[in-house]
């Protein structure tokens, strides 16, 4: 995911870099075309040197060629050993000039040979590409380039970096470049004092990566620097510990928000109405498939709307699953009020039917649901990384929670709903149409599960079995939080999420989950009515 995204950004950089050609063509003298052509006869070692020389040209036009090389799309023509970027076009390749990007006609597949590539070369290419775009006039491109160098530092980029730093005016970009320079410097042949300063610089930036970089570099560094490296690592680690806890809390909250999303519909159908709805997970699954269908339609008819696909999918999913829920309540559940165990069985039957229906229509395999651009990527906060999709899902689940709370407490429907669940006979004698309230309450709970499905389609595999993986967790959250209490569901979901994530590093994901399950089982023994139990006069019989 990350790499794909990264490449996409690079592609954008390249396009913008090409718009202003030859800005950075001032580097070393060698002719880029002949350097590229030399790749046709080079072994991996020589290719690495050639890439270094290409990077030294500072010619941003070379980025597509390098990119193609790392993707395995660089070919040489057998007749004249000239190198081209090749794009498959039927039985032929379309050839593109690696420097100018101009078309160079076509060639039969057997007339060209692919230039071999391996992972260590790819790493070299990545850092070279970073170096090449450091001088781009576009601020975003420079920032990305500095990041790229930071990720795969190489001594070759050092001079280019220093040039770039001297020309840089933007503070944030400059800071990133200085960090990248410091990292690159460690593997260069500069003086010990310069390296000592670089270690300080890296220490000041901190972060988990910095520890890795310092550890990796310490072996090849001058022994006199060892103490500096150790001190720097210790200092970063002590700063990092807090961030690690923060990051764990964040992961936990993020998992908690997923649990909240999955459970919140159940908090209504099970918590408020007391219906054991085993088909709840399938409502989530239907919501996810609604998203898939909406995206298919958008892809086919209005690709420009793709970034809006989730916003469009929300009402669609709500209506689809709400309607299905309504039918289930009217068709099955209403005959079973007061018989919770039977409801459990019947809704399990419903869930099997829904699963098989989806399997028959869409097939048993995972469906590809795309992330809109605003859900992709991440940003750092101090020593932790926050991804946008998790960020949005947390925001989304909390807003659903708030919306639901408002509906329950403020709207007249919410009032009717509470009246019916608290005293059915009294409510009905006051003129509330209790059967309709039941049906719509169940539809609301189902609809919310559907909305949750839209969000979960972004982070989970969309398959007919999607719902199965959430149903047990959802029940655990509702029971743990206290049945009939929305706040309990919130607290339950978040605390289970955080607990899970804190157990994970020490015992592993699966064992962590098992432990959480066991803890919940024990907890229910202690407090059968959950965290936020409603006390009251013991009910008879």
């Amino acid at each position, binding site marked *: 995911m990350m790499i794909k995204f990264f490449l996409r950004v690079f592609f954008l950089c390249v396009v913008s870099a090409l718009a202003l050609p030859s800005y950075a063509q001032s580097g070393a003298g060698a002719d880029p075309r002949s350097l590229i052509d030399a790749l046709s006869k080079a072994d991996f070692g020589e290719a690495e040197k050639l890439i270094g020389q290409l990077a030294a040209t500072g010619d941003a036009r070379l980025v597509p060629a390098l990119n193609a090389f790392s993707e395995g799309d660089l070919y040489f023509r057998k007749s004249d050993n000239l190198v081209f970027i090749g794009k498959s076009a039927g039985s032929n390749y379309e050839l593109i000039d690696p420097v100018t990007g101009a078309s160079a006609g076509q060639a039969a597949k057997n007339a060209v040979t692919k230039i071999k590539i391996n992972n260590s070369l790819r790493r070299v290419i990545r850092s070279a590409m970073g170096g090449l775009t450091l001088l781009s006039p576009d601020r975003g491109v420079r920032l990305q380039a500095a990041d790229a160098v930071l990720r795969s530092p190489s001594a070759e980029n050092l001079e280019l970096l220093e040039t770039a730093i001297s020309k840089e005016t933007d503070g944030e970009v400059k800071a990133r470049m200085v960090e990248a320079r410091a990292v690159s410097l460690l593997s260069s042949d500069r003086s010990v004092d310069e390296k000592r300063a670089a270690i300080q610089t890296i220490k000041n930036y901190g972060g988990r990566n910095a520890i890795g970089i310092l550890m990796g570099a310490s072996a090849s560094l001058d022994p006199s620097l060892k103490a500096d490296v150790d001190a720097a690592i210790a200092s970063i680690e002590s700063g990092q510990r807090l961030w690690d806890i923060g990051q764990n809390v964040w992961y936990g909250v993020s998992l908690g928000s997923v649990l909240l999303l999955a459970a919140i519909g159940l908090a209504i159908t099970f918590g408020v109405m007391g219906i054991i709805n085993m088909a709840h997970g399938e409502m989530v699954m239907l919501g996810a498939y609604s998203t898939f269908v909406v995206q298919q339609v958008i892809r086919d008819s209005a690709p420009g709307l793709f970034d809006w696909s989730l916003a469009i999918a929300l009402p669609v999913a709500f209506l689809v699953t709400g309607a299905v829920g309504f039918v289930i309540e009217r068709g099955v559940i209403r005959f079973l009020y007061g018989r919770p165990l039977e409801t459990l069985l019947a809704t399990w039957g419903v869930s099997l039917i829904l699963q098989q229906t989806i399997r028959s229509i869409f097939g048993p395999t995972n469906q590809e649901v795309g992330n809109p651009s605003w859900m992709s990527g991440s940003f750092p906060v101090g020593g932790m990384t926050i991804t946008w999709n998790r960020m949005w899902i947390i925001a989304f689940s909390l807003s659903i929670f708030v919306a639901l709370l408002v509906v329950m407490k403020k709207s007249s429907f919410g009032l009717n709903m509470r009246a019916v669940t608290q005293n059915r006979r009294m409510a009905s004698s006051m003129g509330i149409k209790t059967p309709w309230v039941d049906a719509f309450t169940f539809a609301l709970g189902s609809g919310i599960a559907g909305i949750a499905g839209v969000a979960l389609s972004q982070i989970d595999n969309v398959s007919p079995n999607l719902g199965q993986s959430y149903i047990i967790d959802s029940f655990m959250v509702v029971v743990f939080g206290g049945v009939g209490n929305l706040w309990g569901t919130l607290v339950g979901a978040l605390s289970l999420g955080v607990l899970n994530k804190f157990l994970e590093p020490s015992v592993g994901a699966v064992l962590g989950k098992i432990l959480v399950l066991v803890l919940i089982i024990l907890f229910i023994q202690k407090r059968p009515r959950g965290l936020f139990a409603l*006390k009251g*006069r013991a009910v*008879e*019989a």
Partner: protein
Amino acid sequence: MNTISETRQKSLLYLENVSVSFDGFKALNSLSFVVEPGELRAIIGPNGAGKTTMMDIITGKTRPDTGTVLFEDTIDLTRQDEADIAQLGIGRKFQKPTVFESHTVWDNLELALNRSRGVFATLFYTLSPEDKARIEEILETIRMIHRKDEYAANLSHGQKQWLEIGMLLAQEPKLLLVDEPVAGMTDAETAETAVLLKEIAKTRSVVVVEHDMGFIRELGVKVTCLAEGSVLAEGSIDFVSNDPKVIENYLGR
């Protein structure tokens, strides 16, 4: 204080300063209440006065926040659970008649019989002639001998109430707590129930919670009126029903 220690000497059930609250609502507010051996006592009071909560506390269903609950002056009931308390000899009849509907009348009584109640004792239990005689005797008392093979589900409401009382008799309790025994009964059934309870009270203590003032008058026993979780008045039915506080709180004008 002298009086309390005197009453303690001979009480069967002794509650002192019992309080319990649910989410801030004080269901019982330093309630004190004493039942003597062989006594038949009636309890009245408006809804929410704490009558059922008091029974819950005596039978171990609810734990009091503070206060003393003693059985036969020595046994602390707050430390026992329902089964222990039942085995000590306190029987309880619920407001809603609760019998085993998918068993016959006979089986209901057989289960209630005061015999060893362990898992293996019940697995290998066989009906002895004494037990048979005892069940027949109780069937006689509750006037259901001809319906002994009927499923309890098929009994009328009043008959279920009697069956439940019969089960309590089979349990041979020293103290019987009866919650609204005549609710939903016909007048004739009510009168018969009064006779039945008086007969039962000859051999054990009985506490009856009831709304029906006519029924209580028929019993003709000492009455305790509860309101807002504590005792409002105690004495004969005429004394209590003329108490101005009782009139204001419960009987109304």
